[in-house]
């Protein structure tokens, strides 16, 4: 039965944490478009809330811009203020 299972005394680290990076800094994007709702959905969770920097890895400079863009997109009904299953509906 479970005799063949290998047991470790100390749990081995399965995945090494990859360092998060700011995708805007890396790819040289300077302006975040509020008109592109589909793109902004990456920075929003399923309920339509803006994801924190600690999850996305965005730098402070661009997080401010992302937040501004998301808020503008919400005003223009390109993004919802509140939603259920925003990502699964796509």
């Amino acid at each position: 039965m479970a005799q063949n299972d290998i047991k470790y005394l100390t749990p081995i680290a399965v995945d090494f944490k990859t360092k998060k990076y700011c995708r805007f800094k890396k790819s040289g994007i300077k302006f975040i478009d509020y008109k592109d709702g589909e793109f902004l959905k990456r920075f929003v969770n399923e309920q339509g809330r803006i994801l924190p920097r600690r999850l996305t890895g965005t730098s402070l400079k661009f997080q401010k811009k992302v937040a501004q863009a998301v808020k503008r997109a919400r005003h223009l009904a390109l993004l919802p203020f509140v939603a259920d299953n925003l990502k699964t509906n796509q």
Partner: protein
Amino acid sequence: MLKHYETVFIMTPVLSDDQMKETVKKFENILCEKGAEIVHQENWGLKRLEYQIQKKSTGFYHLFEFKAEPHVVAELELQYRRDERIMRYLSVTLDKDAIAYAEKRRTHGFGQKKETKPETTFEVKREPRPEVKYDIVEDPIEEQMYEQNIDNKEE
């Protein structure tokens, strides 16, 4: 000094196509009268709203990009508020990065223009197959068997 602005507004879906164009024309005229220089405009057509506005779930989107004195925007927004065909509007100042982006968007056909682009069909260039000459070894016995097989199947 003229400043660079961008404004997007949503019109009610109740309007017919002509009425929609008329409203766009109206705001274009307002801008021109106030001495604004329209750099670019984009009609996004009827779009689904992510949430209802005035109990409507769709709307006509239109975008103006223009250069104007700062007081023009205030006057434009006053006109937006007075017009009941306009459901939402947003006016934004464009900084230098935004201008660069807008230019790129115009020339490269970002976003909305993608949809109107005619579908490009890729022509697959196939090289003509090299002719391979098979050496056919004629084997009388095999030929016979083959013929027999055909005969059997026909029966």
